[in-house]
């Protein structure tokens, strides 16, 4: 059963990576990256069950967290040009 789930996840990861490769805009890539992250989290859990060592779940939780932070960082960087404060940007727009 877990072998089946692993194969399904690997196939969908390959499909998403193809999307990542053949997309034109940035947001397509961020979207594909986000979906890839979700799949990777579940793949870690499934492989942990498959090898009979489910203590990988800590790593899966960590990956979910880093995926969220990374998505926010990429979006913020491409919207404002910095991952820090964007007050300068707003003052530039208004002034």
């Amino acid at each position, binding site marked *: 059963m877990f072998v089946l789930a692993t194969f399904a996840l690997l196939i969908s990861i390959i499909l998403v990576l193809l999307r990542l490769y053949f997309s034109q805009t940035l947001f397509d890539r961020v979207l594909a990256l986000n979906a890839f992250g979700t799949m990777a989290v579940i793949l870690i859990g499934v492989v942990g069950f498959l090898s009979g060592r489910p203590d990988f779940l800590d790593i899966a939780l*960590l990956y979910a967290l880093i995926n969220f*932070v990374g998505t926010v960082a990429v979006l913020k960087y491409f919207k404002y040009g*910095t991952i820090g404060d964007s*007050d300068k940007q707003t003052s530039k727009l208004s002034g």
Partner: protein
Amino acid sequence: MIQALVLKVITKLMVGFIILFALYVQFHGDYSPGGGFQAGVIFAAAFILYGMVMGLQNVERVLPPWLTHKLMALGVIIYTLVGIYSFFVGYNFLDYGALSPAHPEHGQHYGILLVEFGVGVTVAGVVISIYYAFVNRSKTSKEDE
């Protein structure tokens, strides 16, 4: 500061759990995968997320830059003090048995815990300092234009 209300509320909700998860990884180094380095990175990730969503001034007031610089040194000091303590009591450098001569097993447990704590503090300090340095650099380079 991001104006999206959804991101703001979600960040405020999750940041506490992220910090707690970092401390959990820190103190369970010998029961599950993880340890000082990962814990430091998660701890820093919580503050970086907060800084990205709620603005740089806020995060710099929660954890001032001078404090992160001190934290970098503090971790190394903890690490070294553990080593030097065992040195002075008459063991080898970083021989954890020195921490509890009657039960060397317990001593090793405490030693690993302390050394991992030092590693975690240093990594958290370094990663947050890198974030501050990176952000301030991009700010000044924009002023140059």
